[in-house]
């Protein structure tokens, strides 16, 4: 009698356990991890873009981070995303052109990665050819001059590594890995790369003072009769420091790289590239889509006296016929000091973003 009862009791527990386990299998819910929106962004900008089919979760973000540093994504196990997007230099590289796994160089400078969820039109790359962060992440893996791989190869490599199937299960409820889930996880990680703690941000938040030179440089930046940079590169009211739009800023009379026109097929878009954010310039040299300038002095001289006229130059490059906005040496020095105050040292040293 006792024994029977015991048996029944344990039997019941077993059934219960297995049931509940089976139950858990289907219902593992990853822990929601909403983006930590900086105060300044919250105050001044509309909400960041997060697709409803890829909400931010702890498990998704940490899987995405692991994948971002995963060399198994490249055909010969030598490159990860971080090879060209190094967290210590605001997720870009120091080269003029990035080198793919076969030693082939592209003709574009690697782009730093931060505040991507605030690219409201969701046009990625210098020429905007990729729409959405998820879709963008598919491209480098199969790009012949980057990781030069195939997705079926990536999937079998990841499935063969012990940790991954379980991590995908935790993040997305399935152990079956595919390119869509890889890109979703990477995109979740990329959305967490938020830079909003430069000296200038602290100044706007009332937490730091700017030097006289930095303040004067900010005036040069904002003054329509001087630098007039704010029409394209944001301002204290748009702390992204970019409009994420496409312009020809007068680099070439005849552009070698057609930029946006390659994507739209419209000759009126010749030589138009996405305005880069001016955050983190202290770490992201060389500059421009082709990395032609290695210093900020060169960039400033370009706008001051080096503009080249062309049929598609942006009308905001209004003084092209006299070469540019003609800044004095003092204004140039101050403008540079201001630009550097947009660099976020916390962002590049944040342990959460470094390889484990």
């Amino acid at each position, binding site marked *: 009698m006792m024994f029977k009862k015991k048996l029944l009791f344990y039997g019941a527990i077993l059934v219960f356990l297995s049931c509940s386990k089976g139950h858990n299998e289907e219902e593992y819910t990853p822990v929601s991890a909403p983006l930590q929106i900086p105060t300044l962004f919250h105050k*001044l*900008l*509309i909400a960041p873009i997060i697709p409803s089919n890829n909400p931010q979760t702890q498990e998704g973000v940490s899987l995405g981070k692991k994948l971002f540093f995963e060399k198994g994504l490249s055909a010969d196990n030598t490159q990860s995303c971080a090879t060209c997007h190094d967290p210590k230099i605001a997720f870009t590289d120091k080269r003029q052109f990035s080198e793919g796994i076969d030693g082939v160089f592209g003709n574009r400078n690697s782009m730093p990665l931060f505040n991507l969820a605030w690219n*409201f039109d969701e046009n990625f790359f210098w020429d905007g050819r990729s729409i959405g962060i998820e879709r963008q992440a598919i491209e480098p893996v199969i790009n012949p001059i980057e990781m030069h791989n195939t997705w079926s190869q990536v999937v079998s490599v990841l499935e063969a590594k012990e940790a991954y199937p379980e991590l995908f299960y935790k993040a997305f409820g399935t152990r079956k890995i595919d390119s869509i889930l890889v890109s979703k996880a990477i995109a979740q990680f990329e959305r967490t790369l938020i830079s909003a703690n430069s000296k200038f941000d602290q100044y706007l938040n009332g937490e730091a003072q700017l030097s006289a030179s930095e303040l004067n440089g900010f*005036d040069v930046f*904002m*003054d*329509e*009769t001087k630098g007039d940079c*704010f*029409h*394209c590169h*944001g*301002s*204290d*009211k*748009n702390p992204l420091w970019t*409009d994420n739009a496409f312009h020809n800023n007068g680099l070439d009379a005849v552009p070698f790289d057609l930029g946006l026109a390659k994507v739209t097929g419209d000759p*009126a878009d010749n030589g138009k590239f996405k305005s880069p954010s001016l955050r983190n310039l202290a770490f992201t040299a060389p500059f421009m889509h082709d990395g032609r300038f290695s210093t900020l002095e060169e960039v400033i001289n370009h706008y001051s006296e080096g503009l080249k*006229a062309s*049929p*598609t*130059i*942006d*009308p*905001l*490059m*209004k*003084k*092209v*016929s006299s070469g540019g906005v003609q800044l004095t040496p003092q204004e140039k020095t101050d403008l540079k000091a201001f630009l550097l105050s947009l660099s976020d040292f916390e962002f590049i040293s944040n342990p959460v973003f470094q390889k484990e």
Partner: protein
Amino acid sequence: MKFLKVIAIAALSIVSCSKSKITPPSAFVTLNFSHQWDGATVTKSDFNTIKFTNANGQQLSIERLRYLVSAITLTNTEKQKTIIKAIQLVNLGEEKGLRLTSDFAVPQGKYTLSFIFGLNDTGNLDGVYQELNSVSFNVPTMLGGGYHFMQFDGKFNGSNSLINNFNYHVIRAVNREDLANVIFKDTSFEVNLGDVVINESGVIEVKMDISEWFKNPNLWDLNTLNSMLMTDFNAQVLMSANGKSVFSLGAVTP
């Protein structure tokens, strides 16, 4: 008890009947912003080519045209005002904001339609509109802050026989010649488009004739007034005057 119930129901149905008799049917209001040059339609596909001639005989192109109108208001025959949209940013080049539908329905009937071009001093506050900050439509704080009313950029054939750029940027006028005594002038203005009849699914066309910005009452010479107009008090006053004949009521299509 039963009797009471019957009465109550009867009363209720009377109330609801009579209510539907008093309230006329309502409708959502849709505005379509259309653009012309001397009457001929202008769309995004007309951008980026020097193909327009202004009243002063200068040939020009349009490369960017975005502007904002605010306090879009319907005034009924009893002079009651309803704001159907607080701020609308129209961007012709990117084809954004060209159509707006009110968030709520208004009783069908006769109204006058009006709005403010730009933002008046009450509304033109620095940095407060997230939608406008996010598309970089701000005016620098050194010029009093707030927002652009219009950003109209393009190229023109200049008297220097070069192709030059123009930035016809409309903002609240500011004179900073004496920094101790900065003078502002509210150069936003009200546009009254006249009578409209709102019916069940009516779409109201609001027309902007872009050529008017160069014409009336001030003949515009791009050779002298082409860029850095944000800091030019007098230019802002001239633009504000020219803007008053830019808008008109188009078709009201059922």
